[in-house]
C-alpha cells in the first residue's frame, strides 16, 4: 500500500472509506510509484488484462447460444455463425482472442526472462504467473473441444490419453475424465463447465499476481532496486496508464486484423468437419500456442517419458528463480546470458515449427536436438552461467546514467567496451 496516509476529501467519502477502504485502494492504484524507465515490453500486463476481460465477456455471450451436447454442439456453433446477430463477430473475437491472449502472454514471459523479473524478491509473482499460464492452457484446450469438430474430438482424445501413461491408475483416470470409454457427451458437458469456470480462477490469480507485484514494485529494464517513491519513479496514473493505453491500441489493431481479415488462419480446417469417432484426421496438430510442448512430447520415443518431458518443460519454469544463479537481473548487464537468451528464443520457435510438421525424418531429429537444448538451457547453462559470467557494472540508480556521474548504462550497450572486458 501507499507510504502516505490517504484521507478522502468529502465527508461521505470519509464515512465510506472508514467502513470499507476502497478509496484507499483506488488511491494506491493511481499513485503507485512505477520506475520511470519502463519500456513498451512492460505494457503487456495491461494488454493481458484486456485479453482476459475480452474472453470473459465474449464467452459469456457465446454461452447464451451454445448447446453443450454431442449431437447439437457442432450445429449450435454454426447457428451462432449464421443466425445469431453478430454471432460471427463475437465467435471470431473469442477464437482469435485466445491466440492473442497467448501471443501477449509469451511476450510477457519472455520479457521476464530477458530482464530477470522472476528473481528475488519477485519469485511468488512469477510462480503465480506460471499457474495462470497452466490454467490458460487448460482453458484453451477445453474451449477448442466445444465446437465438436474433428480437431476438437481428436485433440481431446490425444490430450486426455496423456494421463493413460501413468502406471497402474492411468486407464482408470482416463475413464474417469471421459465419463465413459471414449470422448463423448459426458466429456463435452464437463469440459464446458470447466471452460466456464477457469477464466474466473484466472481472474482471482491475476488479482494475487498484481497484489504480489505491488509489494516490491515493478522490475525495470536495468533491473536494479528502485527507492519508491523517489525521482526514479513516476505515479502509475497518468504516466503508465496513458502508455499502456497507447500500446493496447496498437495491439488491438493486430487483433482486429485477425478478426476481420483472416479469422480462420490460426484455426484448422478439419474443425469445420463434425466430430467422427471412427476417423482420425490425417494430421493432428494442436493450436499454434501449444506446438513447442507438442514437439517435446513427440520427440521422446517412449510414451511415459514423453509425457514427463512435456510436463517438465512447463514445470521447470516454476523453478527458474532458483536455477538462475546470477544476482544480476537484467540481461543488459549480462553479455553471455543475452546470447543464450536469444538462442533459447530461437530454440522455442524451432520447437514450435517442428511441432506443426510430421514427426519423422529430419523434423524428428531437429525436435530432439531442440528438446535437449531446452532442458540444457535451464538445467545446465543457467546455473553455471551465474558463477562463470563476467557481468558489466550496474548503475546505482535509474537517474544516474541519464544525469551523468556514471556512463555504465551507455557502456553496457557498447559492444566494443565488451571486447576490452574480455
Amino acid at each position, binding site marked *: 500500500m501507499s507510504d502516505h496516509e490517504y484521507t478522502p476529501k468529502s465527508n461521505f467519502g470519509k464515512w465510506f472509506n472508514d467502513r470499507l477502504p476502497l478509496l484507499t485502494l483506488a488511491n494506491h492504484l493511481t499513485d503507485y510509484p512505477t520506475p520511470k524507465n519502463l519500456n513498451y515490453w512492460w505494457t503487456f500486463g495491461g494488454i493481458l488484462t484486456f485479453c482476459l476481460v475480452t474472453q470473459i465477456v465474449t464467452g459469456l455471450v457465446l454461452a447464451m447460444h451454445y448447446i453443450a451436447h454431442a449431437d447439437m454442439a457442432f450445429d449450435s456453433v454454426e447457428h451462432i455463425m449464421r443466425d445469431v446477430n453478430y454471432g460471427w463477430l463475437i465467435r471470431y473475437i473469442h477464437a482469435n482472442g485466445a491466440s492473442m491472449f497467448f501471443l501477449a502472454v509469451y511476450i510477457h514471459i519472455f520479457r521476464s526472462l530477458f530482464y530477470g523479473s522472476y528473481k528475488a524478491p519477485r519469485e511468488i509473482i512469477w510462480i503465480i504467473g506460471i499457474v495462470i499460464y497452466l490454467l490458460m492452457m487448460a482453458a484453451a484446450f477445453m474451449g477448442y473441444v466445444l465446437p465438436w469438430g474433428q480437431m476438437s474430438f*481428436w485433440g481431446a*482424445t*490425444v*490430450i*486426455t*490419453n*496423456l494421463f*493413460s501413461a501413468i502406471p497402474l491408475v492411468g486407464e482408470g483416470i482416463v*475413464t*474417469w*475424465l*471421459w*465419463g*465413459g*470409454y*471414449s*470422448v*463423448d457427451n*459426458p466429456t463435452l458437458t*464437463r469440459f464446458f463447465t470447466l471452460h466456464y469456470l477457469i477464466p474466473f480462477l484466472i481472474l482471482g490469480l491475476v488479482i494475487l499476481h498484481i497484489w504480489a507485484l505491488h509489494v516490491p514494485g515493478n522490475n525495470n529494464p536495468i533491473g536494479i532496486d528502485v527507492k519508491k517513491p523517489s525521482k526514479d519513479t513516476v505515479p502509475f496514473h497518468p504516466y503508465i496508464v496513458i502508455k499502456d493505453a497507447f500500446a493496447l491500441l496498437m495491439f488491438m489493431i493486430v487483433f482486429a486484423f485477425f478478426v476481420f481479415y483472416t479469422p480462420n488462419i490460426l484455426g484448422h480446417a478439419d474443425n469445420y468437419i463434425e466430430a467422427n*469417432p*471412427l*476417423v*482420425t*484426421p*490425417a*494430421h*493432428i496438430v494442436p493450436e499454434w500456442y501449444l506446438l513447442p510442448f507438442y514437439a517435446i512430447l*513427440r520427440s*521422446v*520415443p*517412449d*510414451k*511415459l517419458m*514423453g509425457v514427463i518431458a512435456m510436463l517438465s518443460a512447463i514445470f521447470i519454469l516454476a523453478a527458474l528463480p532458483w536455477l538462475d544463479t546470477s544476482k544480476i537481473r537484467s540481461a543488459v548487464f549480462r553479455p553471455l546470458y543475452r546470447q543464450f537468451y536469444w538462442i533459447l528464443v530461437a530454440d522455442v520457435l524451432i520447437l514450435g515449427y517442428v511441432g506443426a510438421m*510430421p*514427426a*519423422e525424418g529430419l523434423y524428428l531429429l531437429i525436435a530432439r536436438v531442440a528438446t535437449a537444448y531446452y532442458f540444457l538451457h535451464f538445467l545446465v547453462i543457467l546455473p553455471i552461467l551465474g558463477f562463470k559470467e563476467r557481468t558489466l557494472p550496474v548503475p546505482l540508480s535509474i537517474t544516474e546514467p541519464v544525469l551523468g556521474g556514471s556512463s555504465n548504462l551507455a557502456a553496457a550497450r557498447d559492444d566494443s567496451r565488451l571486447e576490452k572486458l574480455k
Partner: protein
Amino acid sequence: MTKKKTERRDFLFTATAAVGAVGVGATVWPMIDQMNPDASVKALASTEVDVSSVNPGKTITVLWRGKPVFIRRRTQDEINEAKAVKLKDLKHPEKDEDRAKNPEWLVMLGVCTHLGCVPLDQKGDYNGWFCPCHGSHYDISGRIRKGPAPTNMEIPKYEFVNANTIKIG
C-alpha cells in the same frame, strides 16, 4: 522425562478428527465418482456384428462403447506373415494365435495405444496399420513394431455367436 498423561480431552480431539475425516471423505467421494461412467454408458456394454459380407483382405470398423473396433478377415498370406514373425522382434511379444483365436478373423480395438487415435488400414512399414498422429506402425496382427506406442492394439472380449455373427463385449 515424565510420560505425558493421556486425558479424556485428547481422546475427544482424536475421535472428533477421525469422525470429521470420514465425514469429509464420504461427502467428497460422490462429487468425484459422479464423473465415472454412468449407468446408461455402462448399459451399452455389448454389440453384435454381422460379418457375412466381409470379404477376405477387407476390414470393417464398428463402434463399440464409443470406440472403433476393427474386424479384419485376413487372407492366408497375411496369416502366414503374422505367424512367421519371431517373438524376439516384438516390442510387446504376443503370439498371433493368442490374438486371433480363429486366425481368419482379427477382432481388435482400433485405438492406437499411444494416445488413442484411430490407425489407418493397410498402411505403414509392416503391412498392417499406421497411426497418423505420432507415427506408430502395427503389423497384420495389430502388434506394435515401430513408433511411440507402448503395447499392441487391444483385443476386446468377443465371441462368435454363430458362423456369421460376432458379439463384442
